[in-house]
């Protein structure tokens, strides 16, 4: 016959196990603002491009949808702008975050960007919905992930290039110093290097253009050996971390790149709640917020899904 003490211990053990099971169930959705929208029974495929910011945005989308009760297939991390866009057009993914400038120039084929944030968004959203049945959810995020040139801060004064117009003088007077690291996409896109050179009326000497993987540009620009300048993204966390200075786009050549969630028309028509789900999230994603999130991954080495989850719960979305 068991003693009272033994029975008590047994009961305590049972409670401990039950408690652990219930605790483990915590966080599995339903909390926060997005818990108010119900998407149970829905199934979505979320995609994204392959760089850090896109991975974070993709994770934010995935977690918010799951929190609202949907089943989500993960296609985050597709290789490049065109891969993601093609996947959306063909229906392989249902949504991904795209930038207004990229949509206008690369996908819709225009050559001149619209220098006003709101007007650019409205133009791209209207045309894409009409021509391609793709809905750009409003409002777009205020962050501007534009291309920009950077230089290591130690060489900022020495090289004398503080605005993009200064490059012309540098190439004429000091061509050996006019070295630049660029990524493949930037080097051939019309809203990239060729367009920039045309707008500012100069050309980097061909042998001074070093084409490398985008991820390596920040470090190489900081080193300053093979290239003094580098093509960087304005919302990247490594700019501050590596102490890089940005060069001013004084002629406003580069388009505005506000991220907005692109959803296929048939998906958004079936589930219009998605728009209200992501509107407050999009508003909260300023350039500083994105830089901080990007830095957590690229500088501190945290994982994108972790970073997304923390940000979402800190801001009351899940």
């Amino acid at each position, binding site marked *: 016959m068991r003693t009272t003490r033994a029975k008590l211990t047994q009961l305590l053990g049972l409670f401990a196990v039950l408690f652990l099971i219930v605790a483990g169930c915590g966080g599995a959705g339903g909390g926060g603002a997005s818990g108010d929208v119900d998407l149970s029974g829905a199934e979505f495929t979320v995609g994204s491009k392959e760089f850090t910011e896109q991975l974070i945005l993709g994770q934010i989308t995935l977690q918010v949808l799951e929190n609202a009760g949907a089943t989500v297939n993960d296609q985050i991390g597709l*290789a*490049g*702008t*065109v*891969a993601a866009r*093609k996947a959306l057009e063909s229906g392989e993914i249902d949504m991904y975050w795209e930038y207004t400038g990229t949509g206008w120039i690369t996908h819709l084929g225009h050559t001149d960007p619209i220098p006003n944030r709101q007007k650019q968004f409205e133009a791209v959203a209207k045309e894409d919905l009409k021509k391609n049945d793709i809905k750009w959810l409003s409002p777009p995020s205020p962050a501007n992930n534009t291309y920009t040139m950077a230089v290591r801060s130690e060489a900022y004064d020495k090289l004398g290039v503080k605005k993009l117009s200064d490059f012309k003088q540098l190439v004429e007077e000091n061509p050996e110093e006019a070295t630049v*690291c660029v990524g*493949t*996409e930037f*080097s*051939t*896109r*019309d809203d990239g290097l*060729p367009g920039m050179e045309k707008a500012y009326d100069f050309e980097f000497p061909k042998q001074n253009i*070093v*084409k*490398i*993987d985008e991820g*390596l540009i920040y*470090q*190489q620009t900081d080193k300053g*050996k*093979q290239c003094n300048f580098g093509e960087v993204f304005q919302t990247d966390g490594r700019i501050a971390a590596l102490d890089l200075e940005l060069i001013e786009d004084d002629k406003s050549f580069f388009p505005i790149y506000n991220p907005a969630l692109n959803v296929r028309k048939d998906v958004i028509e079936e589930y219009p709640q998605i728009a209200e789900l992501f509107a407050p999230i999009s508003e909260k994603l300023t350039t500083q917020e994105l830089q901080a999130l990007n830095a957590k991954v690229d500088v501190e080495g945290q994982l994108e899904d972790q970073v997304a989850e923390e940000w979402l719960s800190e801001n009351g979305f899940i």
Partner: protein
Amino acid sequence: MTTLQKAAAKGPGGAARLLRYFTMPIFLGLAGLALYLYVGTQDLDSIEQRSLNAGTLIQQTARLLELAAVSTAIVVTLAVTTGVLLTRPFARRVSPFVIGLANIGQAVPSIGVLALLAIIWSIGFWPCIVALVAYSFLSILRNTMVGLRQVDRSIIEAARGMGMTKLAVLFRIELPLAVPIILAGIRTALIINVGTATLGTFIGAGGLGESINNAIRLDRTVVLVAASGVTAIVALFVDWLAGVAEDVLRPRGL
């Protein structure tokens, strides 16, 4: 007389054999022509034109050949020497360790090696060469060792018995007999290096990989087909050259 001269001297039969040498170059020439015609009939947009013009293609092909040639020259020198040394009796204990290192060089994905070199060393031509050498080292090393080891012991003993020094045996008996196998390894390494050199674009080494990568990122099929096609033609051409070299370098009497 070299093999080619002998073949030519043997009249019509020899001429037929000579013609066999030209099947591959002719095929490659036709393939190149087909590619040229295909690209010519396409309407190229501004992005495609930046990759598909004579200047860019020639420069990138030349760079690819440069990467393949330099890396092969270096790896052949290093690997054959190492192979010779490792088959000497004094190296018995070190041998598995060195082969292990060579194994790692081939097993680690080339793109990983390139990324590592970019971070700890530098970008550009030479880090790419290092990665290519690391990748093809094992193949040539192994073939050298196998080639040397399969030389009949009795021949070596006979040579020693005739009064040849160890070094003379190495250069006049062992290496010539091992050449066919060593050359086969070199040929394989060379072709692999042409293909792997296209990865050099990620660390700024240039070459046809640049157009291929561009084409993938920006979804331009014409550029992809053209650049990949040219890379394949270059690889097959290099293979053909190596085959001719193999025949020419094969020691007489074998």
